[in-house]
Each structure stands twice: as structure tokens, then as C-alpha cells.
């Protein structure tokens, strides 16, 4: 993983920034969120993919692509979390005290 990060920090930074932006928007976004059930299914899918990656069951290039996706996705999620939390903090601070 460390090696991947040093190889392709650019792409990973891109994924993180993308997540950061998405998180920033998400706080004030009025779009429809995913349902609880969908969220669970997606979580299961993510866990399954992580498990597949950890167990090295996907061979060759597909295995590499899976790893790359999971790392980018993980950084995307981190970016989202930081973005959302920061936006929330900014929004809360700028609101007048009631």
C-alpha cells in the first residue's frame, strides 16, 4: 500500500479532493440521500470488496485495479468526512446565536 501511495499520490490526492468537495457540498445539498437499506447493502459490498482484496482472491490486473479502487475510495470517504465536518463547522459558526 505504501508503495502504491508513493507511485500514484497524484491520483490518490485527486480522489481525496473529490471526496472533500463532495463532503463540502453534501451538508447543504438537497438531493435525496440513499436509504438505510441501500446504505447497508453498499457497506456489505464494500466489506466484501475489502475482504476480496485482503484475501488476494482476485488475480493479476483485476486484483491491482480492485486495490487501486479501494484505496481511492477510502481516500474519497476520508475526504468526504473531512469536507462535511468542516462545512458543518463553518455553517454552525456563521449562524447567529439564537
Amino acid at each position: 500500500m505504501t508503495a502504491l501511495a508513493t507511485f500514484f499520490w497524484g491520483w490518490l490526492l485527486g480522489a481525496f479532493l473529490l471526496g472533500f468537495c463532495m463532503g463540502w457540498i453534501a451538508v447543504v445539498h438537497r438531493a435525496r440521500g440513499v436509504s438505510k437499506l441501500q446504505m447497508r447493502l453498499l457497506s456489505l459490498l464494500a466489506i466484501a470488496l475489502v475482504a476480496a482484496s485482503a484475501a488476494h482472491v482476485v488475480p493479476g490486473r483485476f486484483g491491482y485495479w480492485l486495490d487501486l479502487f479501494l484505496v481511492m475510495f477510502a481516500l474519497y470517504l476520508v475526504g468526504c468526512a473531512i469536507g462535511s465536518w468542516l462545512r458543518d463547522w463553518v455553517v454552525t459558526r456563521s449562524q447567529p446565536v439564537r
Partner: protein
Amino acid sequence: MHGLYKWSSKWWPGVIPLVILWGIAAWSSTATVEGDLAARSNAALKDTVLDKRRISVDGRDVTFAASAFSEDGRLSAVASVETVPGVRLVNDETRLIAEAKPFVWSAERDVLRVTLGGSSPLPASKSKLTEAAKAALGGVEVVDQMGLARGAPQRFDSVAVLLIDQIGKLKEGKITLTDNKVNLSGMARELGGREAIAAALKNLPDGYSVAANDIKAPPYVFQAYKDPVAVTLTLTGYVPDNTVHAALVASAGRKFFSEKVVDNLKASIGAPSGFANAVVPALGALSRLSTGTLVVSDREVKLSGDAFYEAAANQIRAGLGKDFPQGWQYKAEISVKPAAAPVDPTVCQQLFADILAKARIRFESGKADIVADSAGLLDRLIETAMRCPSTTIEIAGHTDSDGDEAANQTLSEKRAQAVVDYMVRAGLPANRFMPVGYGSTQPLGANDTEDGKAQNRRIDFVVK
């Protein structure tokens, strides 16, 4: 925390550009990653000795195929690839090279090249042996047909290098090392080569032994060629040592009175016993030929050429006398030189004078026995006498002034008679010769110097 959960339900739209980004990243990076990992894996194996190494990278998975020379080496090579940063997993297709039992290595020399065959334990020793062969053989083509195998005996490299040195001493042949037994066969390049190889094999390390040494020595050759046109006697080949060398050349000088001796002899060990005793009489026989070649090869003496007349040819064919050693073979192919044209008495006298100016008939000291070294000279005189069949020839014996005059007179008569007897035995009619002894009454030189005395001790041929 609740907020984070709430917000996260709205994070999904970003996944679409993320997937596009991932697609681009995967498309553009795969080949780079694979190339990079292949290079790092090869670098990690740089110092590991392997044969037929092949590394292919698929994504981050390395397929590693190679032949290792030991189990430890194999495991450590796989471990080195596994620890290369970025490698996800290693498909281990390594194996050990086959074990040779028995472990056979060979070096074979023929006219054109040296072929190294059999098994070698490591690529390094393979190239080391090839280099050693090139160095030892200077210029001869070296063909490397060695395979790689486990199971070499201890100190294989040093033994193989020692054996390669020996192959340089062979003209053709084969040296085989089977486990720790050495087999040799073939022909040594030079005289003494067989002995040199046997001596070198004593340096084999402990545990090694010579199973069979069938190296043959080249024949011990001595050649002499009497060339009547260039008036030379050319000696080539080998003599056992400098003493025999000097003795042979001196003997040739006495027997070949008019020829210049060209000495191209080399001293070498390996002469058959009785060499000098065989060669000296053989040179004597050659000196009696008008033109001829003497080839002594090991214990075989071959003489071919033309004798001056029939009786001489028969004597030469008959053998080399009582001194010729036992166990030696003598083969003579002697023909008779065509008879020279008859000449008138004046020319005949001139021919006798020319021949006797070059050499004198020599006798045992104080006796009337002609020494064997004078046979060639006498043959020339007999041939000349045959060219003027109608003449009568006075054979005049002379001595120096040393000793009693009466004894000198008797000795000169006996010596003249001995020469006449020799002529008659050669087939000339006795009535053509008149033996006369003059004692010391007709000196050519002063009798007070050794040179002068030597000039006075002589047999003259006077055509009447």
C-alpha cells in the same frame, strides 16, 4: 457523529467522477506499475545465482520462474521477490536444477577445437572453466556444451581447471571426471607430454583419483636426409640429451666427409633404450648411399635410398652389424644408383684426387683395419674405379715418420692391401689393383707437426 451518518447518505454522487478517475488511473498506470515491479524484482535478484530466470508481472502479481542451484538459494530468491515493495503476491514457479548422479564433466580435444561437456555446478564455474580453457589453449576454439546440474564433488572447479591445463598438453584426446575419478585417453602433443600430465595429476586434491590414464606418447622420431644436390646432411627430430646429441653430430661429421651437417635436433626425454647404438650404425649405412633418408621412429629404423653399386646395396640391406641393439627393427628399401658414364683414365685420376682431397681412408691406430666410418668414402672410390674399367690402379700406402721405418713400411703395405681387399669384396677384379707400401718415404707435409703427420698418413689412388 449522527451528522456524519446523515451527510454520508448524500456522498454518493461523487462516486461517479471517482469511478471515472479510477478508470483513468487504472488505464494509465497499469503498464507503468508492471514495468516498475519487474525492474525492482530483477534488481532484488541481482546477486542471486539462478539459471533460466524469468519474471513476468501481471498487475502487482509477479510470476517468478527460475532454476536454483540449492534449496536455500531457491527459498531466499523467492523471499527477495516477495519483499519487493508493491508486490502483492508471488507465483512461485521456481525449481531446483536436476541432480546429476554420477556427476560427469569432460573436456575433449580434436584437431580443430576443445569441447567442454557434461555438467557444471554453477554458471560462474561454467564461464570460469571456459575462460580457463581459452587461456590454456591460446587460440584454439573452445566449445561450451556444459549443462548445469547439482551434485558436483567438493573442489570441482579447481580439479576441472587442473584437467583443462592437461588437455592443453594433448594433441587429441578426452579427459573425463566422473564424481571424483579421472579418466584420460588420447595422444600427447609433444614428447614428454605424457610424463608431464602424469606428474600434474599428482596434484589432484585428496579424495580424487585417476581411474585410467591411457595417454599415449607421440613416436620418438629421428630423421636424417642426405641431399646430393645441396651436399648436406639434415638431421631433424629428437635426441635423448646433449651428450648423445654431440656424439651423433660428431659421428655424422666423420661418416659424411663431403656433406655439410645441418643440425636441427632437439633434446627430449622419452627415447627408446639403445637409441644411440641404433642410430650411429644407421647413420653409417646412410653415409654409404648416394641419396637417402633415414627415419627412426620409436624402435623402428627405416632406411631408403640409392646405393652406389650392387654389392653395397646388398651389404646395406643385410643389416647394421653386431652393434645394432636387440628389440629394434630395421627396414631397408635400397635401390642401386644408375651406373655413371665411363670416363677416361685422366678424368678417373682427377676424380680420385678430388674425393681423397676431402677425406682420407682411416684405419685403427697402428693397425691395418679400416674403420667403419670410412665405408661411405670407400663406396665413392669404388664407384669411381668402376667408371674406368680398363685402368690399373696403384693403391699406395703412406705413413708418417713416427716409429720404426721397417714397421712403417710393413704397415703401409698392409693398409694398401686392406684397401685392395675391400675393393675386391665390392666386386672389382683383383688384377686391376696394385697395393704398394711406401712407408714414410714420400711425405706430403712436414713430419714435425701433427697436421703434417696427419697429411702423411694416407692411401693414394694412382691411375697407371
